[in-house]
């Protein structure tokens, strides 16, 4: 038997148990087995792919429209997320919220975090988006050698980050 990823003989046989259809047996050579096993315990792609498949079965014709939806902050499209299983920025959880919620229910059976909370918070989703936008603007300013503007933005970012600075207190309210 050959490895699933290359021409070498498959010497490792791994059973994956996250598949809803039952255990899935995979065959790898030593190198690819190591790669597979060093990944996180729960293979996100399997879980996401199956949850998305379930969800998209319900979306039907709207899928094309959904796929084209893009995050205004990082520019990732839903299609790209669907293909990679990875989101582009924290704001995606807000921008794609209604599309992600069924996925979260499929994967976690919940949409509500009840665990640990940081003692200081970046505040609203909007302020997170603003910070990422500002950071990008700062990089652009540096690139065109507008150091005055860059340092203004740096101060603004610092004020948003610093919990003692007055600006961040208003952003502590939750959305």
């Amino acid at each position: 038997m050959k490895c699933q990823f290359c021409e070498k003989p498959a010497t490792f046989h791994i059973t994956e148990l996250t598949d809803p259809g039952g255990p899935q047996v995979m065959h790898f050579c030593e190198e690819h087995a190591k790669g597979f096993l060093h990944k996180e315990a729960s293979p996100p792609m399997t879980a996401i792919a199956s949850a998305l498949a379930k969800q998209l079965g319900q979306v039907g014709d709207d899928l094309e429209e959904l796929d084209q939806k893009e995050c205004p902050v990082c520019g990732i499209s839903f299609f790209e997320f669907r293909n990679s299983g990875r989101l582009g920025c924290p704001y995606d959880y807000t921008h794609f919220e209604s599309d992600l919620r069924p996925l979260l229910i499929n994967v976690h059976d919940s949409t509500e975090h009840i665990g640990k909370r940081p003692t200081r918070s970046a505040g609203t989703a909007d302020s997170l988006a603003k910070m990422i936008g500002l950071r990008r603007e700062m990089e652009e300013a540096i690139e065109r050698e507008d150091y005055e503007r860059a340092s203004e933005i740096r101060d603004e970012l610092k004020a948003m980050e610093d919990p003692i600075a007055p600006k961040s207190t208003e952003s502590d309210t939750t959305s």
Partner: protein
Amino acid sequence: MKRDADFDKLARYTGQWMRGEGPESDIVISTRIRLARNLADFPFIRRCSDEDRLSIERTVRARMESLTDNNWSAAQYVDLEPLSEIDRQLLVERQLISREIAEADGSRAVAFDAAEGYSVMVNEEDHLRIQVMKSGLDIKNTWEQVNRIDDMLEEVILYAFHPRYGYLTACPTNVGTGLRVSVMLHLPALVITEQMDRVFRSMQRINVTVRGLYGEGSQYTGDFYQVSNQITLGHTEADLLALVGEEVAPRIIEYERKARESLLKNNRDDLHDEVSRAMGILNTARKISSEETMHHLSKIRLGISMGLIDQLDVKVINQLFLQSQSAHLQKLQGRILGRAERHARRASFLQHHLAGKGDTTWN
């Protein structure tokens, strides 16, 4: 933080979590807990420009350096980008970094302590992956330490956190707590008695992932399985820790104990034969692959736990599991070895250590 990691020295030692100590250490190799965290003001890694990555790495390093905690200031900080492939591989074999971050491009780094009890990866799939590892089944202490590191980093780094969805992660399977607790189990008796399928089936319904590495038919088996929580959202950290540490792991440990007892009672001679043969091969082979080594070391480890081998310490076996891997062998040899050379070098390395001639050095 120190920035002068000596990889030749590192290869000669074994991290504390491989001591083979702690609760249930005859069956549980290690407990590992990791937290996924992201900085609030950057895109996730996938949408980061090279500048973003560099900026994240520099920001995190500077903030870590500002910490005054004593344990922290003794940590090693290793920039992974300029590192040779073999040194990155060495860190992978020691489980200080993931294979993904080893093989990725761009700015990325890892911070870890001298005892290798914790490591923080920078620019993995998430901006930060904080992990703590301990020997044996030790959920409470592992969690306390990882939680403390998280609190400490949170003082200086603003995390991406959503009031409803919790800690925001690049992959929605990690969102919420960002917590993955994994217990690595050695289950040779369940494999020999062909009961692993039953264990797998019983775990499926309870939001736990069991993943194993095993051979079929004539292939080699290592008998190691990792149990971890599958979900991260909608439960408290305490619930997730209890699920793996109090419900699932103890149950599998009990199954394995029963299988070992039954083997001793009903098949003692067969078992003793198998263990002795494993010892015989490792003591006499002239060349050997890492898979075959793992298979035989697993049997020897079982033999030690069951009192069938008394002249060997499980620490030595754990050390051999680590140091017989490719990057370690090459670091210890001081040069790059081809495949055939590695197999020959591995065989002589194993013989030397099994004969009690090697140093067992603990960090």
